[in-house]
């Protein structure tokens, strides 16, 4: 299995993620990658409304957000979260790669976009980039994923 240097916050704690996708196994797939990157799952949600509630409850460092979901779609959830929390870091994760969708998500405040099926190395680089401009996040450390907990 591919190994990645752990992505840690400045306080050397694991980066905390909120994973939002209506498909349970798609969430598990993302969570598997988060663990490979030395991260921690702060919460999960299967729709946009739950995502907003979970964001307020868990205050994650990063949100990984699907676009097409029941009740409230990802782009609307992004808009509402960013309206309340201007510093929210949200990465869209979707199989729908239309330019209009990507632009809409970015205009509403998403920081980046990754198309499914998600390649771990692609998500890792995007997370490094998104964490890079976060004063609380140190970006990638040299330690292998999991070593920071030892």
């Amino acid at each position, binding site marked *: 299995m591919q190994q990645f240097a752990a992505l840690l916050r400045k306080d050397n704690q694991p980066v905390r993620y909120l994973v939002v996708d209506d*498909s349970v*196994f798609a969430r*598990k*797939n993302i969570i*598997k990658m988060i663990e490979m990157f030395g991260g921690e799952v702060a919460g999960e949600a299967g729709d946009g409304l739950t995502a907003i509630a979970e964001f307020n409850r868990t205050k994650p460092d990063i949100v990984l957000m699907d676009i097409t979901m029941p009740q409230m779609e990802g782009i609307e959830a992004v808009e509402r979260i960013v309206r309340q929390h201007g510093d929210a870091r949200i990465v869209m994760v979707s199989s729908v790669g*239309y330019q209009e969708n990507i632009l809409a998500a970015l205009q509403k405040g998403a920081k980046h976009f990754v*198309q*499914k099926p998600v390649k771990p190395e692609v998500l890792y680089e995007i997370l490094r980039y998104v964490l890079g401009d976060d004063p609380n996040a140190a970006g990638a450390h040299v330690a292998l994923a999991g070593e920071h907990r030892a």
Partner: protein
Amino acid sequence: MRMELIQPFINAADAVFAESLQAPTKILDLSMDEETYRRKGVAALIAIKGDIEGRVILDLSAEVAMKVASHLAGEAVPSSDQVVRETVCELANMVIGNSVTLLNDQGFRFKVFPPEIHMNEEGLAGSIDTEAMVIAIETPCGQAYLNISMRYLHRRRQERDIASVID
């Protein structure tokens, strides 16, 4: 049916299975089908309307869908109709999403409708002029089938215009 409309879906399906399962896949067979589609397992039908229009069906057995779900989840997933539905939908969305990106890059604009899942025993009704390309893909989890029927809308408009002149 024009191959340049079909190819993006074949490429996307091949790439989605190979990348999702982290293993090589193989296109086993390509054939034309003019009958009402008889699904082989659980089928997700996605309709497309715009500059091009038609439909794409991704079809795999429940057993294959469960193997894919377990692989993606990184652990054994308890078998259920819901997981099978979710898996087939998710895979169909990924195939369509990736092909749409390729077709958008070629300048086509169209609307993609949400997947309809078919698990019952009936065939999927096609229109009288439905002509589809069926592609069998060998994956490490078993075989998957892609049934594509797609055409340019402007060609249909021309046909309608000719028909109205004849009338």
